């Protein structure tokens, strides 16, 4: 048959490769800054947009969507063309995808530090950016399917299956979790409330790990490990089972982020069971990757690329062993809300995503620039700096998490909490926070060494923008083998393949979510729980804007150690008006769900001005601008109307009366402050925040009194 001549597009691969390096360094530099802020609070600079709670979301979003995101696209655009023996479907779409994605990242940099956030972790970007993400994601999928459809290779290699599953699942996750009601250009409320919002958010959050940080990288593993080591994957049969089992099981596992919370018990158990089962496909995949190198281990000693890849797969194995363990309720009771989780995600992010990206870059850049790597020695330095960095990061965090959790739970023989002051458990782990910063710094230095090495390589080489290739076109009519199996049929049909994966992931999501939304008995209502007053609602939005959830939970678990410390445990019915929920996932500071009435108003006022004045040794930064900023009450009617649309039972026409009630309540708080010697105008933001904090968790307290 006549061979067709065509060329692979390397330019788009190069662009995404440079973007992943650039954003990786930015994202990790911000990470290092937030790590140092926990040791030296002065590094918050008393400026809102550099304060921990504003830039911690920037760090997580930058590393996930900018560093790993661009890394995914680099690897997919390189491998997909070769696996399909076709150039990308459209250079224009590739370009729109590239620039669109970078613009989304820039818009994150321009919004998150300034408090424009939805307050839902890893989905913090506001609604206009959410729409942009959806559109650009569709461009990516369009380009990918276009390429697949004009391919010259009949069968879709397993890597492409992972890419397809990634595309379809991320689209579903993003759209479902981003249902929000805009009230202005950069402010919206989550469509879901409380427990339902939490379930949707962690279904999204967990599967962002699964389908953004894992499946695309597994696809890259299945392409690049055989490519670099020049041998086929250990077992292609295993990879088929790996794929289907992984995408089916992962989607159910989200509720393990909500163990012992107010989420219905059956949903928690479902999450645990599927998380434990996940270990099978995860380790199947890890073993498949590692065993591909059987008989080539001598190469690993010399080839720095392989070293990175081996450590990456090992880190994947460790993280996916740890994950199911952490989802067991008894382990989770210790680990949740502590730095153990931070250690866990960084083994995944630094080890698995980071090292796999580095390995691919060291292999890809010299190849595309038709030269040798500038310095193998520097690459080896990078390897060791990175490996030590991971160890110095993870070990202190495991230690800190364990220690702090045990301190939270320790009782004296008399039966009272041994460390009743939360702060005591924080100051104890400061040395570990310092060591973690060192680990992060080592890893970042290694990254910068790689950037230098790559710049030198790029300068020495000459770029091959269009790589010539030739292959026979596919015959129009395919002669199926007699008695062919259905799975072989699906391996040739990308669209049907996508639909089948979509059905698989929808089943898991639907079975978890529909009952929580439709069945009343899942969220028992509590008659004393009333909607927020207009001032409290404004205060809550300040709480969200300032990112308080990055350090404070609002979820008291039903443990003696928690009810003794914080008060009555949290009930599902208490959150029915919370758009979005603010349960948090990490306690760097104490839980706030029963904060209402615990301290006088003046305590909160002074504490926001200078936390150390009320709690000496506190590492919480000052939020002094709340004392100066005037509360914007022009938004109140729109906010009330939005809440009514979402089903919050304010009386009809209340939007017009709301600001009157707001003024009355703020005046009474200002007078209250005056009694304690604090002079302030009643129209400051701090007044609204105090009203919200004093409301927290009090609905139920009232009921108990009766």
């Amino acid at each position: 048959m006549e061979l067709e001549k065509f060329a692979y597009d390397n330019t788009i691969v190069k662009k995404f490769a440079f973007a992943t390096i650039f954003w990786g360094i930015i994202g990790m530099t911000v990470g290092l800054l937030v790590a140092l802020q926990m040791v030296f609070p002065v590094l918050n600079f008393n400026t809102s947009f550099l304060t921990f709670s504003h830039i911690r979301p920037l760090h997580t979003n930058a590393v996930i969507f900018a560093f790993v995101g661009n890394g995914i696209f680099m690897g997919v655009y390189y491998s997909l063309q070769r696996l399909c023996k076709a150039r990308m479907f459209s250079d224009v779409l590739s370009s729109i995808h590239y620039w669109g994605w970078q613009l989304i990242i820039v818009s994150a940099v321009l919004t998150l530090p300034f408090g424009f956030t939805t307050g839902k972790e890893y989905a913090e970007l506001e609604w206009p950016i959410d729409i942009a993400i959806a559109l650009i994601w569709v461009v990516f999928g369009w380009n990918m399917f276009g390429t697949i459809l004009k391919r010259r290779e009949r069968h879709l290699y397993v890597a492409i299956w992972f890419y397809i599953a990634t595309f379809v699942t991320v689209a579903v996750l993003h759209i479902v979790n981003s249902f929000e009601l805009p009230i202005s250009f950069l402010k919206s409320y989550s469509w879901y409330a409380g427990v339902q919002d939490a379930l949707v958010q962690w279904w999204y959050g967990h599967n962002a790990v699964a389908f953004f940080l894992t499946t695309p990288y597994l696809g890259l593993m299945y392409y690049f490990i055989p490519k670099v080591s020049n041998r086929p994957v250990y077992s292609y049969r295993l990879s088929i089972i790996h794929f289907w089992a992984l995408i089916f099981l992962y989607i159910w596992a989200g509720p393990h982020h909500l163990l012992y919370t107010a989420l219905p018990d059956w949903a928690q158990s479902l999450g645990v069971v599927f998380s434990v089962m996940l270990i099978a496909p995860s380790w199947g995949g890890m073993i498949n990757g590692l065993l591909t190198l059987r008989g080539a281990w001598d190469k690993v000693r010399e080839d720095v690329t392989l070293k990175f890849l081996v450590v990456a797969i090992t880190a994947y194995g460790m993280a996916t062993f740890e994950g199911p363990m952490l989802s067991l309720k008894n382990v989770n009771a210790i680990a949740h809300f502590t730095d153990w989780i931070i250690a866990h995600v960084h083994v995944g992010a630094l080890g698995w995503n980071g090292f796999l990206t580095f390995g691919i870059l060291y292999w890809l850049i010299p190849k595309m620039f038709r030269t040798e790597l500038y310095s193998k020695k520097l690459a080896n330095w990078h390897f060791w700096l990175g490996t030590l960095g991971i160890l110095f990061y993870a070990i202190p965090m495991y230690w800190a998490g364990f220690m702090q959790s045990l301190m939270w739970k320790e009782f004296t023989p008399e039966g009272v909490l041994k460390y009743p002051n939360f702060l005591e458990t924080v100051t104890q782990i400061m040395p570990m926070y310092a060591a973690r910063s060192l680990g992060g710094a080592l890893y970042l230095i290694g990254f910068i060494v790689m950037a230098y090495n790559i710049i030198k390589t790029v300068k020495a080489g000459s770029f091959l923008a269009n790589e010539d290739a030739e292959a026979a076109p596919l015959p129009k009519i395919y002669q199926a083998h007699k008695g062919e199996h259905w799975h072989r049929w699906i391996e040739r049909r990308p669209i049907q393949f996508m639909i089948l994966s979509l059905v698989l992931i929808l089943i898991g999501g639907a079975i978890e979510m529909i009952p929580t939304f439709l069945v009343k008995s899942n969220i028992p209502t509590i008659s004393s729980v009333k909607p927020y007053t207009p001032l409290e609602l404004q205060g809550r939005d300040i709480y969200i804007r300032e990112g308080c959830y990055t350090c404070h939970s609002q979820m008291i678990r039903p443990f003696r150690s928690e009810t003794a410390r914080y008060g009555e445990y949290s009930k599902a019915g208490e959150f029915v008006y919370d758009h979005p929920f603010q349960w948090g996932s990490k306690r760097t500071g104490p839980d706030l769900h029963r904060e209402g009435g615990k301290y006088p108003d003046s305590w909160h006022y002074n504490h926001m001005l200078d936390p150390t004045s009320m709690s000496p040794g506190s590492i919480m930064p000052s939020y002094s601008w709340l004392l100066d900023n005037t509360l914007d009450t022009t938004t109140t009617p729109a906010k009330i109307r939005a809440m009514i649309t979402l089903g919050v039972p304010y009386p009809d026409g209340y939007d017009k009366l709301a600001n009157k009630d707001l003024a009355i309540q703020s005046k009474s708080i200002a007078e209250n402050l005056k009694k304690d010697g604090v002079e302030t105008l009643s129209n400051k933001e701090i007044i609204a925040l105090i009203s919200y904090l004093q409301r927290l968790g009090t609905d139920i307290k009232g009921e108990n009194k009766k």
Partner: protein
Amino acid sequence: MKFINYLESIADVSIYPMISLFLFFVFFSLLIIYVAKTDKKHIDELSNIPLDKNEK
């Protein structure tokens, strides 16, 4: 669209997990049978796709 709880409870709720368990048991059984039965030559061909020799 408001997310109110339309149902007090679901009748015979236990049928849903049983159906899904059954569906996936069948799916994975077929998958394993397929994987075990596929001939080695075909599998070798597939696993060599990334190593295509036409490519430089």
